[in-house]
C-alpha cells in the first residue's frame, strides 16, 4: 500500500529546495527526499550564487531576508582573470562579465548553505503535513501502467504523489530511470575538482584586499593545465578559500590527465603562492560532474507528472569562466512549482509538464540554455575561428594598447562568452598568448604550498561506508573499456593503490598475466565521472551512505 503526498521532491539541493518552498508556502503538502544525512551533506559547488536582474525568481523571491539570514560567505564584487604562460602572468579585470545581469553574487559553502535552506523548507512544509526526510534515496519513479505516479526508494515503502520533482542533481537517478536521458557522451559534461582551504580572516582580507561582507573572484587560464579546456577559480569566503578547476570532461579524457594534479599545479604556481602569501591549509577536497547545459539541458524536462529541475535537467550555464547552476536551478524549481500550482488550480494536472516547459522557455533559463543557437552555430565555424585566432594571438596585436583593449572587451562580454565555441583557442590559446606577450614574470620567495597527496585527501574525508553493497559495478574490467577511470576519477591515481580505480596485474591459475581495472567504491566521492568514462553500472549509494562533506 503506497502512501500519498501531494508533492514529492527528490533532492535537497538549491533546485529542489526552491521548488519545495514555493509549493509549501502555497499550501501544498510536500515531501522532500534527500539521500544525504542532511541537506548539503553530499553537495559541492564552486562558489557563486548569482541573482539575476532579469528575473524575479531568485532566492530573494522566496526569502526577501536571505542576505541577512542565510549563511552566505562574501558578495563577490571583483572578478579578475589571470592569464598564465609558464611563469608569466597577465591579470585582467573582467568584472563586467561577472556583473552582466547580476543583482548579487554570493560565494557560498554548500554544507552550511543547504542546511539553512533545508531548515527553512522543513519548517514551511511541516505546516502542511510535509517535510524533509534525509537518509532516503529515490531509486526510480513509481509507475502505474505507463504513467509515473510517485517514487520508489531504497528505504521507504513506495510513495504516490500528484507531482514528482526530480531535483537529484547531475547524477540524477530519477531522470535516467524515467527514461528522460542517459549519461550521454563525455562532451556533455564538465568535471569540477575543488579544495576548500582555511585562511584566518584578517590575513584573507589583507591578502585579497576585501573587507566587510565583500569578496573577490580570481580565474586562472593558460598553459598550466596541459592544454585541457577549462580553467581554475578561487573565490574568497569568510575565512576560507574555494579553489578549484573545471574542465570539459572530454578534454580530460583526451589528454589522459589526472584532474587533481592540475589543481595542485595551480596551487603550487608562484603566482598563487604570492596571492595567498604562501598560506595554504587544506580543509576539504571534493569533486562533481557539472552538466554542460548547452548540450546537456533537456528540451522537455518532464514526463507525465514528473518535472526535472536543476542539474538533473542539465540546467547549467557556463559562459566563459562564469558558472551558473545554482541560480538556474532555483529559478527552474520555482517555475516547476508554479506550473504544478497553476495546473492544480485549473484542475488540469496533466498540463503541468508543458506548462513548466513554457515557463522555462519564457524565462532567462530557457534563453541561457537554448538561446542564440544560430549565433552559436556561426561562431563554431572553423575557418573564421582560425582566422580570428591567428589575428588575435599575434604578440604585436596583444602588446598594442588597442589590442589589449579589444581583448579585454572580448573576454568581458557575456554575449561573446555565451556563443564562444568550446575550442582550445578560447580556453588555452588566447590566455596563453596574452600571458606570454604581456605577462609579468612572477617568482616567489615563499615556498610553494604543500598540497596533499590523493591518499591523504581521501583519508581526510568522512565516509559512512555502505558495507557489503557496491553502488558502482564495473561491467567490463578491460583496460580498453574502463582504464580511463584510473586517471580521471578524482580520487584515483596510477600512483596510488588506495583510490577507487586501479590497475591490477596478476597471474591467474594458468600462469597467464592479465591487467584488469578494479574498483574500490569506499573512497568514492560520487562525482559521476566513471559513469561516463568507464563501463559501469552506476548508482548513488543508499540513503545516508557514502561520502559526507563538512564544507562542500
Amino acid at each position, binding site marked *: 500500500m503506497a502512501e500519498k503526498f501531494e508533492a514529492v521532491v527528490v533532492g535537497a539541493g538549491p533546485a529542489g529546495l526552491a521548488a519545495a518552498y514555493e509549493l509549501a508556502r502555497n499550501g501544498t503538502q510536500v515531501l522532500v527526499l534527500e539521500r544525504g544525512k542532511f541537506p548539503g551533506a553530499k553537495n559541492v559547488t564552486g562558489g557563486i550564487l548569482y541573482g539575476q536582474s532579469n528575473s524575479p525568481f531568485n532566492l530573494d523571491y522566496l526569502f526577501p531576508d536571505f542576505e541577512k539570514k542565510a549563511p552566505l560567505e562574501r558578495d563577490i564584487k571583483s572578478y579578475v582573470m589571470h592569464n598564465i604562460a609558464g611563469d608569466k602572468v597577465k591579470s585582467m579585470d573582467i568584472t563586467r562579465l561577472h556583473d552582466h545581469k547580476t543583482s548579487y553574487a554570493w560565494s557560498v559553502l554548500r554544507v552550511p548553505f543547504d542546511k539553512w535552506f533545508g531548515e527553512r523548507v522543513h519548517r514551511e512544509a511541516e505546516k502542511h503535513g*510535509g517535510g524533509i*526526510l534525509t537518509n532516503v534515496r529515490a531509486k526510480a519513479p513509481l509507475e502505474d501502467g505507463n504513467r509515473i505516479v510517485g517514487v520508489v526508494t531504497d528505504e521507504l515503502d513506495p510513495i504516490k504523489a500528484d507531482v514528482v520533482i526530480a531535483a537529484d542533481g547531475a547524477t540524477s537517478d530519477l531522470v535516467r530511470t524515467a527514461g528522460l536521458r542517459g549519461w550521454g557522451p563525455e562532451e556533455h559534461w564538465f568535471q569540477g575538482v575543488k579544495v576548500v582551504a582555511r585562511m584566518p580572516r584578517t590575513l584573507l582580507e589583507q591578502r585579497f584586499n576585501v573587507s566587510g561582507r565583500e569578496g573577490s573572484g580570481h580565474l586562472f587560464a593558460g598553459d598550466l593545465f596541459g592544454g585541457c579546456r577549462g580553467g581554475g577559480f578561487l573565490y574568497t569566503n569568510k575565512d576560507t578559500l574555494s579553489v578549484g578547476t573545471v574542465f570539459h570532461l572530454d578534454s580530460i579524457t583526451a589528454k589522459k590527465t589526472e584532474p587533481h594534479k592540475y589543481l595542485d599545479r595551480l596551487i603550487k604556481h608562484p603566482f598563487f603562492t604570492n596571492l595567498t602569501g604562501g598560506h595554504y591549509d587544506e580543509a576539504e577536497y571534493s569533486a562533481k560532474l557539472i552538466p554542460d547545459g548547452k548540450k546537456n539541458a533537456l528540451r522537455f524536462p518532464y514526463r507525465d507528472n514528473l518535472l526535472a529541475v536543476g542539474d538533473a535537467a542539465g540546467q547549467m550555464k557556463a559562459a566563459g569562466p562564469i558558472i551558473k547552476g545554482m541560480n538556474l536551478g532555483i529559478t527552474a524549481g520555482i517555475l516547476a512549482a508554479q506550473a504544478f500550482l497553476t495546473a492544480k488550480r485549473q484542475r488540469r494536472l496533466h498540463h503541468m509538464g508543458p506548462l513548466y516547459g513554457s515557463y522555462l522557455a519564457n524565462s532567462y533559463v530557457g534563453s541561457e540554455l537554448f538561446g542564440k543557437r544560430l549565433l552559436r552555430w556561426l561562431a563554431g565555424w572553423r575557418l573564421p575561428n582560425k582566422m580570428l585566432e591567428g589575428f588575435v594571438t599575434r604578440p604585436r596585436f596583444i602588446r598594442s594598447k588597442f589590442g589589449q583593449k579589444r581583448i579585454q572587451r572580448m573576454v568581458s562580454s557575456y554575449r561573446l562568452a555565451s556563443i564562444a565555441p568550446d575550442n582550445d583557442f578560447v580556453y588555452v590559446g588566447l590566455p596563453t598568448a596574452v600571458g606570454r606577450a604581456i605577462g609579468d614574470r612572477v617568482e616567489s620567495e615563499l615556498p610553494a604550498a604543500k598540497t596533499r597527496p590523493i591518499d591523504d585527501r581521501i583519508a581526510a574525508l568522512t565516509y559512512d561506508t555502505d558495507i557489503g553493497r557496491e553502488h558502482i559495478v564495473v561491467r567490463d574490467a578491460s583496460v580498453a573499456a574502463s582504464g580511463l577511470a584510473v586517471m580521471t576519477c578524482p580520487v584515483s591515481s596510477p600512483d596510488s593503490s588506495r583510490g577507487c580505480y586501479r590497475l591490477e596485474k596478476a597471474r591467474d591459475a594458468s600462469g597467464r598475466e592479465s591487467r584488469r581495472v578494479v574498483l574500490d567504491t569506499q573512497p568514492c566521492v560520487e562525482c559521476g565521472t566513471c559513469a561516463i568514462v568507464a563501463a559501469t553500472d552506476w548508482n548513488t549509494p543508499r540513503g545516508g551512505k557514502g561520502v559526507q562533506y563538512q564544507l562542500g
Partner: protein
Amino acid sequence: MHSMNTVVLVKGVPDFREGKVSFKEDNTLNRGATPTVLNPNDRLALAAALELKVKHGGSVRLVSMGPPNYKTILREAMEVCGDEAYLLSDRMMGGADTLATAETIAAGIRKIGLPDLVIAGFKSADGETGQTGPQTAWVLDFPIITHVVSLEVDEKARLVRARRTAGDDIEEIEAPLPCFIVTDPGFTAVFRSATNRLRLLRLGEETVARASKIDSVFKMWGVADLGVDPKKIGLKGSPTIVNKVEPIPVAAKERTAQVVDAKDAGQLDEVARRIVQLVRG
C-alpha cells in the same frame, strides 16, 4: 482505545570517551574527575520506545535510580524520548548491586503504575553486568525478551513480536503484553513509512523541547515514597560487595619496529621463537 504505556530504564555512567575520562595515578578510574553521561546502550532502549511511540502513540516514562544529579541523565535521555522522568534517589539506595537495584526500580515502576512495556538497555558502561534488566523483569514478574534487535507491537492482540539474536541464530519471539524488553546493541528501529518518519522528526523535536524544561515533568522519589522494604535495597539489599579494585597493567603502545633482514636465517629463527612464545604464553 488503550494507548501504549512504556517505561524505559536509564542509567548514568562515566564518560569513557577519550578526552573525558580521567584516571588516578594507579590507573584506576577517577570518578570524581570524569563526567557522568547517559549509558550509551540506553539510547537503544530509548530508540525502541520512540519507535513504538511513533507507531502507536502513548506515553514514555523514564526511570532511573541514582544520586540527585542524575536529573541531568534523565534530561539527556529525554532528549531522545520521554514524556515524564522519575528519579529514584535516596541515601538508603546507595551502594546497590543489581538485585537491590532491580528491587528499587521495580518498586518505582509499581508506584507509577504497571505499564505495557518496560525497556532496558543491555550492559551499562560501568557495572557492565547486564543483570539489571532480567532481574527487574523477574521482580515484576513480567515475561522478558532479551537481545532484541527489532520490535513490533500488535495492539489488538496485545502481543509483542520481537527479533532477538541467539548465538548464531536469529529468533522471532512472541510474548503477551505487559512485557519486559532488553534491547541488543544491534537494535535498529525500522521506519518504512514516510508519514512515520515525519512523525519521528516531530516527536524528536518535541521531546528535545520537553527536556529543556524537564522540571514540569520530573519527579524524585525516596524510600518513603516508594514504600519499599528497606532490607531489599541499597547496601543492605545487596548480596555482593566489591572487595578490591586493582588496575590491569596495560603496556603503553609506542611501537618501534625491530627490523629483521629476511636473508638472515638466524634472525628469522629468533622471530619464529618469539611468535611461538607469544602464541603459547
